[in-house]
């Protein structure tokens, strides 16, 4: 039978390599896989491209990666309030691709859903047009937005079963659900592993087909 449970965060990040693209779930602290973030640090990988809504704000989040200088580029909607990132941004040692939040999450969805892109009304007539193809449909201009995919997606769930079915806690669902569809390896840090069959089939948010690894986080 399928069993995607791994022992800990170290096993969850196995195979991560220099230069990989990594999605990290969370909006603020909700949905942020803190154990996984630390484990990535321990691997010694470098030159990561990170896709995440934020760029860290305290001492147990993505700030750790910027402090360790393992990020080459971040694709992000709101890197403000990210002090360590800001220092490196000012120094010109990290690249930023600023993407409006709804476009960011829809690009990730498109990546996971096998689309070649989508036409968005968001950003037309603004600096967010730059470098994008404009397509007119029915007399209205849209920007062609391209899908985002990653080598790894790291997100935080509430419960998982051994198959890899996952639920989330309240607003911690945020970007986690789509990120968990758009990476070659999806590893989910959860509060609790439950028996297969224990999750309500109507209420599973991430069906196991999207999930490669789950592990129970340590006490925070």
């Amino acid at each position, binding site marked *: 039978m399928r069993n995607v449970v791994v022992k800990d965060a170290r096993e969850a990040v196995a195979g991560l390599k220099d230069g990989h693209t990594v999605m990290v779930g969370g909006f603020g602290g909700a949905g942020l896989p803190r154990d996984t973030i630390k484990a990535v640090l321990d691997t010694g990988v470098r030159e990561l491209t990170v896709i995440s809504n934020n760029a860290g704000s305290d001492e147990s989040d993505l700030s750790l990666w910027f402090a360790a200088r393992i990020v080459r580029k971040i694709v992000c909607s709101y890197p403000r309030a990210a002090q360590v990132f800001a220092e490196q941004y000012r120094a010109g040692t990290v690249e930023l691709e600023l993407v409006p939040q*709804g476009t960011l999450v829809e690009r990730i969805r498109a990546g996971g859903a096998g689309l070649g892109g989508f036409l968005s009304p*968001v950003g037309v007539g603004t600096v967010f047009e730059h470098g994008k193809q404009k397509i007119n449909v029915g007399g209205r201009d849209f920007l062609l937005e391209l899908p985002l995919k990653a080598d790894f997606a790291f997100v935080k769930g509430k419960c998982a079963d051994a198959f890899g079915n996952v639920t989330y806690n309240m607003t911690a669902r945020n970007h986690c*659900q789509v990120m968990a569809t758009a990476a070659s390896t999806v590893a989910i840090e959860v509060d609790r592993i439950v028996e297969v069959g224990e999750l309500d089939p109507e209420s599973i948010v991430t069906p196991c087909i999207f999930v490669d690894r789950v592990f129970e986080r340590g006490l925070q």
Partner: protein
Amino acid sequence: MKVLARADLAKMVALHLPTEGFVNLGIGAPTQIADFLPADTGVILHSENGILNVGPKPPSGEEDWDLINAGKMPITLREGGSYFDSSTSFAMMRGGHLDIAILGAFQVSAKGDLANWSTGDSDGAPPGVGGAVDLAVGAKAIWIMMDHITREGKPRIVKKCTFPLTAVGVVSRIFTNLAIIDVTAGGLVVDAMLEGLTLAGLQDLTGAELQAPAKPRVIRTDGTSSL
């Protein structure tokens, strides 16, 4: 110069909301509008991080950091609320399902162009846009809540925005600490002014031409206004 206090401005906007509808309160000042909604309001608040029917902040000590709003502050969920992922949340916005989004602004133009995500002058700090651009495009009506002028005394209502745009031609109504102004096809029309203020006085503080009916409504200093 006498201006509405921030809380009274929030109250004024709250008093202009319909009795029912789906509303997103932008991060920062607009969030305060929630404090002035009646207890039995039919207004259902949306927050773009994936929640409908946002309730007041929880009592101190009962915060749950998995239950936060778009400003990343702890909130509660009211009865009949729901959680969903961010792609669904932004689909609600982009798809025109929200009735009103009430946003802060640096500048609004006479044509309803909005600049509220960047002053363009970052002195090297990283820019951040969040959901500002998405909200401004999607909601059925975009209301602005802001001070009428900058701290330096410059108008925020202008002929043409000089700051980077958030969206083009989207603003329908502007609530400031001096006036309520409708953005119409024919230009900016003053709906109401703070008591004691004259149209000429308001025009002096505004960077685009204002029109007004013979007798605009009067805003009292507590945020209430005449019919």
